[in-house]
């Protein structure tokens, strides 16, 4: 979230789309009801299902799953054609006025530079026109035909009401209402927020879904404002932290990058990732990349990181391609992987295409599962007729199941969606012999260090060099680890108070630069408990610590105009007054600069403005475009039948054969979470099991009648990848949609199936889903796939 949970109360219009906050983030949703009651806000819900968020909406609009981009591009068309745009904002704080290269183009579903053979783009043309100084050319009048604004208008021209309705299935009347409600926030005194989650990421174009919404927010002038922003409602309690910790295939903590094969030396790496400003006078915050990177290497390798050895750069593994879960499971499936450590993930239930995963895990030599609950992943080798059919004896995998503590039995910090780092305490000992994750990885590492010391082996240096100088090497305390995350001066041992103190010369060590300030010489800042909200705007600067530097609303320079005057005096975050900046939040810019010089709020970008044109950032193109899900219930793309789905999808070998067609599997299907459950954890929790004991499949009354299915009947739902048996919930809350001259029925399956828990034995929905996913992130298309449904013989 650029903003935070409480801030939702400042919104005038809340759009829940690509998420279901009432069910997945119920307490956060509480702030929506707060906005509705005390700020007279309107709630709009756009979703394939009339869900619990919709139950309180002022307006609900149904949508066919996987067509959000069309929906939102239509909104952009509506805004631009009716001039419901915050032009001052758009001109000053977005790249609307930037000129794009002449060779950039879009035709029949493809942007310029497509290489049919590779299934990928040469992105050369997706860039600004640069002047002689290397700065982007702009036309502040927005009249130049190559300026982003005009290219965008041209791009969205196709998305008129009827076209959008024809793709999305949203009736035009409903669509218009939503457009009008969103557009109402283009004025300076009104702000909208979008709340989204997996409903947007779980698509083969998830990143573009979110991007399209961000564009709407920029056009309305809603980013950097109280009650606005781009608000990803993260999933797990510490997804934000896990991402901050860089526990991803190509990342390191603090969004710095794991080196790639293309960067043989530290200098190469730093050069590749330290951007040059694209406009004069930019803050261009990533220019500090070397400071963050070297400090991180110091945290990794301690005294073993020296300028002479590039601070241990060579000991960092380098990537040649993205080894995300999807890729990795595919390699496992092909027998290319020997070992896997699964830490707190019920992979067999979570990862798409369960049958494939089961075969993949069976290929392993060893599997180490760290978990505090008995998950189906650790017991994948146990035969369970119907649910988990395996030949136990033939599975040669050695499996370790290691018990871990749960939240209540450890201390440490987790980061919520609003980037609040909150410290928690231990309330009881863990059951039996369970250990914290950090203690277990230490135990394995100490064993490996011992083995390498005793017997040598391949590349022992990093194993020896890794800085594990904690008081108890076998069990580093959370306090020591978190102080390392904050960063310190390696000479004096003094904790840094902000990342501004980090150095590129090896004199500071920092585990995650964004966390600098969380544990300073003043002690633990994450543990602060002053809940006062002096401004009444929901900003509680004395509660916990929000990275970066306790800032609560990101990009808050955008809350005022170029001259430092708030767009809306009731929404003042910062303000230029009497020759200085004042405000209720930590400024997200160099507060020493005057308004005009600081008028580039998006300081992490080398041009300092929000991008309506995304340059080369995303694989599909610099503008979003509607592509069908990999499995489309209409089998075509009404806009460009030759390019049905995203042209840059990653196709693993053989996966094409597992993709179903609408002829065989005529119904769209989506998956979702229920309020009562959290993935599979809560299936082991009796209270949750009581409140929702079994999964089901939701379907509309028309389809049920056609198929002779009654509420509560056992049905068989099948996709190209497998089938499940479950009970039907026939409801008015789903309805058939008219799409491209046909009727599309959507089914919905909660993702909380489990055959090994306190809930009723159930199939998991990942039997049905495909591993095809977003080309940028690898996130699988869990939200839109094709199935068939039949009444099952009991």
């Amino acid at each position, binding site marked *: 979230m650029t903003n935070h949970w409480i801030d939702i109360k400042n919104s005038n219009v809340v759009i829940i789309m690509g998420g279901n906050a009432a069910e997945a983030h119920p307490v956060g949703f509480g702030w929506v*009801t707060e906005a509705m*009651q005390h700020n007279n806000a309107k709630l709009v819900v756009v979703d394939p299902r009339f869900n619990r968020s919709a*139950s*309180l909406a002022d307006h609900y609009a149904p949508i066919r799953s996987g067509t959000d981009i069309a929906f939102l591009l239509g909104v952009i068309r509506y805004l631009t054609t009716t001039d419901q745009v915050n032009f001052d904002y758009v001109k000053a704080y977005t790249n609307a006025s930037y000129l794009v290269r002449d060779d950039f183009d879009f035709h029949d579903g493809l942007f310029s530079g497509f290489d049919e053979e590779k299934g990928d783009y040469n992105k050369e043309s997706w860039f600004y026109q640069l002047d002689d100084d290397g700065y982007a050319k702009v036309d502040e009048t927005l009249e130049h035909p190559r300026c982003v604004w005009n290219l965008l208008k041209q791009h969205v021209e196709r998305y008129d009401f009827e076209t959008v309705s024809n793709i999305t299935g949203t009736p035009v009347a409903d669509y218009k209402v939503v457009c009008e409600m969103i557009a109402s926030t283009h004025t300076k005194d009104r702000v909208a927020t979008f709340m989204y989650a997996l409903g947007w990421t779980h698509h083969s174009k998830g990143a573009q879904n979110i991007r399209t919404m961000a564009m709407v927010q920029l056009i309305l002038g809603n980013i950097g404002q109280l009650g606005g922003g781009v608000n990803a409602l993260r999933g797990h309690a510490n997804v934000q932290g896990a991402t901050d910790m860089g526990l991803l295939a190509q990342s390191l903590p603090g969004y710095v990058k794991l080196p790639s094969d293309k960067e043989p030396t530290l200098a190469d790496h730093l050069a590749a990732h330290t951007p040059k400003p694209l406009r004069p006078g930019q803050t261009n915050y990533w220019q500090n990349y070397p400071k963050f990177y070297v400090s991180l290497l110091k945290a990794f390798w301690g005294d073993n990181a020296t300028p002479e050895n590039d601070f241990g750069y060579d000991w960092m593994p380098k990537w040649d391609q993205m080894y995300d879960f999807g890729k990795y499971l595919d390699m496992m499936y092909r027998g290319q992987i020997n070992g896997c450590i699964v830490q707190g993930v019920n992979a067999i239930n979570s990862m798409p295409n369960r049958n494939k995963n089961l075969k993949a895990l069976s290929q392993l030599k060893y599997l180490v599962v760290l978990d505090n609950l008995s998950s189906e992943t650790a017991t994948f080798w146990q035969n369970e007729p119907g649910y988990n059919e395996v030949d136990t004896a033939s599975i040669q995998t050695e499996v370790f199941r290691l018990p871990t503590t749960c939240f209540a039995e450890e201390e440490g910090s987790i980061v919520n969606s609003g980037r609040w780092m909150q410290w928690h305490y231990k309330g009881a000992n863990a059951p039996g012999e369970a250990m914290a994750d950090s203690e277990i990885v230490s135990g394995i590492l100490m064993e490996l260090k011992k083995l390498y010391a005793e017997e040598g082996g391949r590349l022992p240096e990093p194993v020896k060099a890794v800085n594990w100088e904690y008081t108890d090497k076998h069990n580093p305390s959370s306090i020591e680890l978190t102080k390392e995350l904050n960063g310190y001066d390696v000479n004096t041992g003094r904790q840094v108070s902000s990342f501004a103190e980090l150095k590129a010369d090896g004199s500071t060590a920092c585990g995650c630069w964004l966390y600098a300030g969380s544990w300073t010489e003043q002690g633990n800042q994450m543990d602060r408990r002053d809940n006062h909200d002096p401004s009444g705007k929901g900003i509680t600067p004395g509660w916990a610590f929000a990275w970066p530097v306790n800032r609560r609303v990101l990009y808050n320079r955008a809350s005022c105009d170029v001259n430092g005057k708030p767009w809306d005096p009731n929404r003042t975050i910062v303000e230029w007054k009497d020759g200085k900046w004042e405000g209720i939040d930590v400024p997200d810019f160099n507060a020493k600069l005057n308004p005009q010089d600081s008028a580039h709020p998006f300081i992490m970008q080398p041009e300092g403005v929000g991008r309506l044109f995304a340059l080369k950032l995303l694989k599909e193109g610099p503008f979003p475009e509607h592509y069908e899900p990999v499995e489309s219930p209409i089998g075509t793309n009404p806009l460009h039948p030759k390019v049905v789905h995203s042209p840059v999808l990653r196709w693993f070998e053989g996966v094409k054969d597992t993709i179903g067609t609408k002829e065989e599997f005529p119904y769209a299907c989506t998956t979702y979470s229920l309020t009562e459950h959290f993935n599979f954890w809560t299936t082991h929790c009796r209270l949750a099991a*009581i*409140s*929702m004991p079994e*999964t089901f499949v939701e379907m509309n009354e028309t389809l049920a009648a056609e198929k002779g299915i009654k509420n509560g009947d056992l049905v068989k739902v099948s996709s190209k990848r497998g089938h499940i048996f479950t009970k039907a919930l026939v409801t008015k809350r789903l309805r058939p949609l008219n799409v491209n001259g046909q009727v599309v029925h959507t089914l919905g399956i909660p993702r909380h199936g489990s055959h090994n828990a306190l809930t*009723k034995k159930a199939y998991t929905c990942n039997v049905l889903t495909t591993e095809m996913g977003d080309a940028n992130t690898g996130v699988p298309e869990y939200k839109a796939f094709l199935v068939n449904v039949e009444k099952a013989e009991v």
Partner: protein
Amino acid sequence: MATQDIIRRSGTSDVTPAAQARVGGVKQVAKLFDATKCNGCKACQVACSEWNDLREEVGSFQGTYQNPASLSPECWTLMKYNEVEADGKLHWQFTHSACMHCADPGCLKACSTAGAIVQHANGTVDFDSDKCIGCGYCASACPFDIPKISPVDNKAYKCTLCSDRTAVGLEPSCVKTCTTGALRFGTREDMLFYAEKRVAELKDRGFTNAGIYNPAGVGGTGMVMILRDINDPESYDMPKDPQIKVSTELWQDVLKPLGTAGILATAGVALLHRITVGRNIVEEDQPGYRAEDHEEDNQ
């Protein structure tokens, strides 16, 4: 609890009422359920079970989100789900189903075990399980069908409004946990004031039929509801005009006095008859009876 905090006891004669000193001194409390702010998340339901240490059996899917299927001795708060089509729109309506804490509670009226059901000075209607004998009169008398008898211990159970929490100045568990603010707790006066304000807001937002459900038939309730359409409480599974049942009233207010009179009258007549008419004996059978002494009598 101090006895004086109990202002009404079941099975207690009006002639010898429970302590009345605190009537009017202790503020009446109320729980407000604003159905127009509820999204059916079940937090209240789970928090209720958690606080009260209740664990119903894990059931199975019954074609609805509603689980367990009904209130039970181990489920004192239950979210109910109704799909209603009205004014051209689909409404998914949720009801926080739990004891209404009637000012004039049918259960207390029906209970014939002295002190097994009490009404606290703050208006809470509470069961004393130690005294409960499991007759089920309360369960059948409740106009809202709330109390349930446990097959395990044969005692009646229902929401206590967390009387153990309210006794130490806390709000009920369900209210504390409510994510959307659909549940509130406070003095009855404050809740009604708030409810009226809220209904006015709702009317401004286009809910022209919004209204307060605080049925007079049971003297008003300790759980007040705000409903989208006050003319159609049935769409929330709430009775339109709940009253103490005629059967309960006939039983308590008519049959009992008449029955008493009947029994006493019969016994009285018998006694009177006995002392006036005297013994009815067969003299032939009496000791010392000689037929010849009575010959003329026999003729």
